[in-house]
């Protein structure tokens, strides 16, 4: 391509190098978003490490066996798993350019996600009501930080989901919206992967201990 040379007032040449391979808009978004998810994965790894180190320090307070209701955790896990598959259906209908059906599946995904957050908040308020607050012991501090961070991620995902539903409603399934929906899909499924670690290491192994 052309390299323009403009002599400035001082006489030094200035070089402009044109990009020889213009890339289509958003061609690297999915890789960039994947790298973000990997960095998020490191955050969760640190929180899991903190929980692994502190998880047995009850300070004579309540232990996982006294606090966790595995039936509730099982219901919560199924909510998140169902929201994963319904988001998958939203992606499939998006590929077939069916706007109304995509919106319907996104709405169902959002409802399952909201149910997950609702159940988790109920569990938290129940625990705090019983005196199992984050200040009570190192185990509870680590528990609330880890599970709370995951819940915060899901809440942000819900806000993002509603934003994208408005976007799709106003502009349709344009290329930019498809790209955004694909990023949210990766985010949503990633949160489900993190939840596998949470229910295994925090809840199941906690009750087992």
């Amino acid at each position, binding site marked *: 391509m052309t390299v323009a040379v403009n002599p400035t007032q001082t006489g030094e040449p200035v070089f402009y190098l044109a990009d020889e391979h213009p890339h289509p*808009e958003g061609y690297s978004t999915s*890789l960039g978003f994947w790298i973000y998810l990997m960095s998020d994965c*490191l955050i969760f790894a640190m929180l899991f*490490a903190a929980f692994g180190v502190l998880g047995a320090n009850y300070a004579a307070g309540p232990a996982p066996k006294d606090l966790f209701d595995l039936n509730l955790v099982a219901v919560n896990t199924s909510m998140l798993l169902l929201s994963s*598959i319904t988001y*998958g259906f939203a992606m499939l209908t998006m590929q077939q350019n069916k706007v109304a059906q995509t919106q319907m599946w996104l709405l169902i995904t959002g409802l399952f996600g909201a149910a997950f957050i609702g159940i988790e908040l109920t569990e938290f308020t129940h625990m705090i009501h019983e005196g199992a607050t984050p200040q009570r012991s190192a185990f509870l501090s680590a528990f609330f930080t880890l599970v709370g961070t995951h819940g915060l991620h899901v809440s942000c995902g819900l806000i993002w989901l509603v934003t994208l539903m408005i976007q799709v409603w106003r502009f349709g399934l344009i290329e930019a919206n498809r790209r955004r929906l*694909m990023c949210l899909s990766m985010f949503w499924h990633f949160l489900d992967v993190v939840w596998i670690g949470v229910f*295994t290491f925090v809840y*199941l192994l906690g009750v*087992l201990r």
Partner: protein
Amino acid sequence: MSTDSHAAHAGDHHLDDGHAHSTFSGYMLGFVLSVVLTAIPFWLVMSGTLPSKQITALVIMAFAVVQIVVHMIYFLHMSPKSENGWSMMALIFTIVMVVIALSGSLWVMNHLNSNMMPIHEMTGMK
């Protein structure tokens, strides 16, 4: 992007990588596997079928690892070819970092705990 330019870049497989493998059967297979791989650990812990707690712990951790792989393949569509291998490269790097951070923290802190002087011994030292 308009559909015209999308068609023009049809040879450029970057764009389609993210959802190239999305199929109904793929999602359903992933979902059924996930349900089974979630239900078994919950059942094992809630019923206490296995004789020792240590065996149960190892088994449910193995189920978690398998389920994470299932999610990666069927929901996140990971494959060695996506993004010309760069997403796999980032994933492998992350897994190495996570393993070092987790095992290192648990190992070091466990040794610190066992090397701490127990409280009842300290009260006797005056």
